[in-house]
């Protein structure tokens, strides 16, 4: 097992390195970049532009820049943002709690909707309820996310005036938890309803798989009540695939949701990444790419581990050969 862990770790590192090379190359080759804002200003003298290029370290060829960056990262320094002049880590630290809050709450709500509905749907397979829920799930899955978000704003903010349409808190007021919760209603609804649709389908098919297993028949034969059979033996096993799926949600938990953050003016990681990528803020872009990639790799690893823990039939070593 240790050998396996070491192998996975090295694989992960290599993947990260490859990603960083590709992204750094792309980001540096993209037209525009940090200098274009300055070059367009007729008051900037040639001397000013040269001084700036040197300050941003843009005089070196791209490979040299990459290795300088890599050296700093390896010594634990993710750099300073070209745009805000703040250490990249500090700025991410400001945004991360907002994203974790929004995505975390949305995930919980998603599961609270998806798991019970998926189970009911499976237990009542082919019933009117099942058909209805399935239809709803497909509708939810095919909703264009930002269109749905705008619809929520138009109906519940603009027309009805029930919920605020932007930001995390009412500006100019002292902070209150109720106010924050109030601001979360619409973005969480947007995220949860759309993702819940997918999860519900997973839950349903997984529950259907389990329903006809031998151990379920055994449990019933033991004389257990139907409810206990379904919950204790059925649900527990049916949740395994869901847990793996959840592991893949970890990167999203940190990465935020660009559309939701954009529509509801939520100051999260998705917007940070997007805004800085367009401005040519290479240190920030690279740091975020690195973090997201690392999280994805860790999440995949966790999914494998959790899977073996939950299902003793699967062995790590065998699974890998």
């Amino acid at each position, binding site marked *: 097992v240790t050998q396996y862990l070491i192998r996975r770790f090295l694989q992960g590192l290599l993947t990260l390195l490859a990603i960083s090379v590709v992204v750094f190359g792309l980001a540096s080759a993209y037209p*525009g970049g940090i200098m274009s804002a300055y070059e367009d200003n007729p008051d900037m003298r040639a001397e000013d532009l040269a001084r700036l290029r040197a300050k941003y370290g843009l005089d070196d060829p791209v490979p040299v820049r990459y290795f300088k960056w890599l050296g700093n990262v390896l010594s634990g320094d993710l750099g300073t943002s070209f745009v805000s002049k703040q250490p990249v880590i500090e700025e991410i630290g400001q945004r991360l709690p907002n994203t974790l809050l929004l995505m975390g709450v949305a995930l919980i709500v998603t599961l609270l909707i998806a798991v019970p509905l998926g189970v009911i749907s499976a237990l009542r397979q082919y019933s009117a309820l099942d058909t209805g829920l399935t239809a709803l799930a497909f509708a939810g899955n095919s909703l264009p996310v930002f269109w749905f978000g705008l619809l929520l704003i138009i109906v519940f903010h*603009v027309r009805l005036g029930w919920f605020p349409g932007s930001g995390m808190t009412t500006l100019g007021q002292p902070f209150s938890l109720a106010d924050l919760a109030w601001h979360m209603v619409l973005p969480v609804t947007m995220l949860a309803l759309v993702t819940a649709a997918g999860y519900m389908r997973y839950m349903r098919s997984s529950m259907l798989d389990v329903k006809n297993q031998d151990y379920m028949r055994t449990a019933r034969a033991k004389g257990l009540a139907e409810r206990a059979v379904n919950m204790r033996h059925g649900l527990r096993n049916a949740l395994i695939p869901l847990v793996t799926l959840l592991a893949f949600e970890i990167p999203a938990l940190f990465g935020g949701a660009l559309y939701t953050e954009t529509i509801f003016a939520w100051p999260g990681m998705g917007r940070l990444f997007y805004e800085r990528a367009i401005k040519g803020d290479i240190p920030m872009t690279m740091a975020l790419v690195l973090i997201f990639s690392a999280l994805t790799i860790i999440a995949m690893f966790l999914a494998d581990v959790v899977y073996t823990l939950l299902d003793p039939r699967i062995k790590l070593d065998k699974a890998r050969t």
Partner: protein
Amino acid sequence: MLLRKSLALLLAVMVLTLAGCTAAPAAPAAPAGATEAEATAAPAAEGETAAQPAGEPVAGGTVVVGSPQEPDVLNPLLSLSSIADAIGSFVVEGLVQVDDQGNYIPVLAAELPTMSDDGLTLTYTIKPDVKFSNGDPLTCADVVYTWEAILSDLSQASTSGYSSIDSIDCPDDLTVVVNFAEVYAPYLRLFSYILPQAAGDPAALDTWDYNRNPIGTGPWMLSDWQSGNFIEFVPNPNFREAGKPYLEKLIVQILPSREVGLQLIGTGEIQALWDITEADFPALDALAAQGVTYAGAQTGENELLLFNFGDPAVDAPADVTANPHPILSDLRVRQAIQYAINKQEIVDALLYGNVKVGTTVLPNGTFACPQDPSEFSVEQANALLDEAGWTVGADGVREKDGQKLELKITTTSGNLLREQTQQVIAEMLKPVGISLVIENVPSDVLFAAWDANGLRKHGQFDILLYTTGPFLDPDSHLYGNYHSASIPTAENEGSGSNYSRYTNTDVDGWIDEAAAITDVEQRRELYCQVAAQINEDLPRLFLYERLLLTAYNDRIQNFKVSPGPSDFTFQSENWWLKP
């Protein structure tokens, strides 16, 4: 990029539909104005606000301004984004600034500075008893410090003009004597911001606390900045005008897009929205019932067509007489295009008649040089093209020596107003036998730098549609855009913005001459000759004059926009909320 543009477009459509829906009186019910109502004395007067005269300023209240962009830093030495300059102006002031008409006015200086006859000695007198928000008095030493900081190694500010200064003397605390090593004609623009010595050591500029919490003499102090969320300001207790600012609090909310902002200003969640454009006139029109109006300032910029004199097949030709554009190098073709375009119709149809047609490179400010509007005449256009040897072919498109009179027009993709403008122009050119092919690219590509193979820099286009113009003092704009030394080539590493590759030795001479003197009258005459010559030679064709716009709720009094760096924050100490 494309994704964002299409998203923005969709949002825009949604907002328009939405604005149409909410014209019904139900909408203002949303009580988001609570932020400001709690502080004002008489929120009950809601119904009769329109009938009341402007009256005496009322103290208190909060204004939330929405901004689709977040300032990078609020230190003028590090930032070049216009939103940072604007928001920074809540706190940071200069010796002079630009008022809403485009003229320089004194701020921390008692009056505009005086220049010696030889154009080398400039004298400012500082207002007495001005204090920074940290309590330090403003003295000549701060001006010297600011100058040195601008020229320091880590500074990202333009050193134009400051590098021409030889020394600054301080005969006393309130007198600043600037000694120039060489004549710097646009000297009025200097010292539009002053940093206190307490800001820090310029050698550590990037890590100053000042960058995100500036210390200034202005009416406001920064009290909180939540990245991506909001920036909050409270009154500066040391502000020199007693009783001002009238407002109790000022908040800038960072919004993901202008479209979202237009929704929020309709529901009253924000009271002003920065950076709307002429394309938003229809949306604003629909929000008029909610008390939304706009303030605009002429920026001196024109939406324009830029003609390429060089052969687009040749990479950045230095000499266009050797590599002329096969069609556009002929003046008669350019004149024909100008005759064929009905500018007033574009303004009326697409801009609701809210802007003026373009006539001159110098439309406003101290150096304004009005020119006669171009004539609209299909006959003249046809006559010129006939004369130039272009004959109408079977498909209605003119041709000469087997070549069709077909031109590409390029602008930033995803900009609805510009796309509509292109289509209208293409329709207008059809009757005279010119075929206009629309070929747009994302703005990053169009405006890309020389090193990034920018098509504008390398001359790989026929006609460009975008906006540019002189910013107050025409010196740098005219030199950078019309002087032959500013043609981007491999030799000068692509510096300069003379993308037409236009060369006129008279124009070069007048621009150089005006840059060497400081007398405003003489400079105006020289620049006016340049402006007239540009209209003769037509490297660019001015369609309409651009405005700098900010939408606001008409409860805010004294809301003005300056074409200078302060933008919508101009004299924000005078803002107050009508109860």
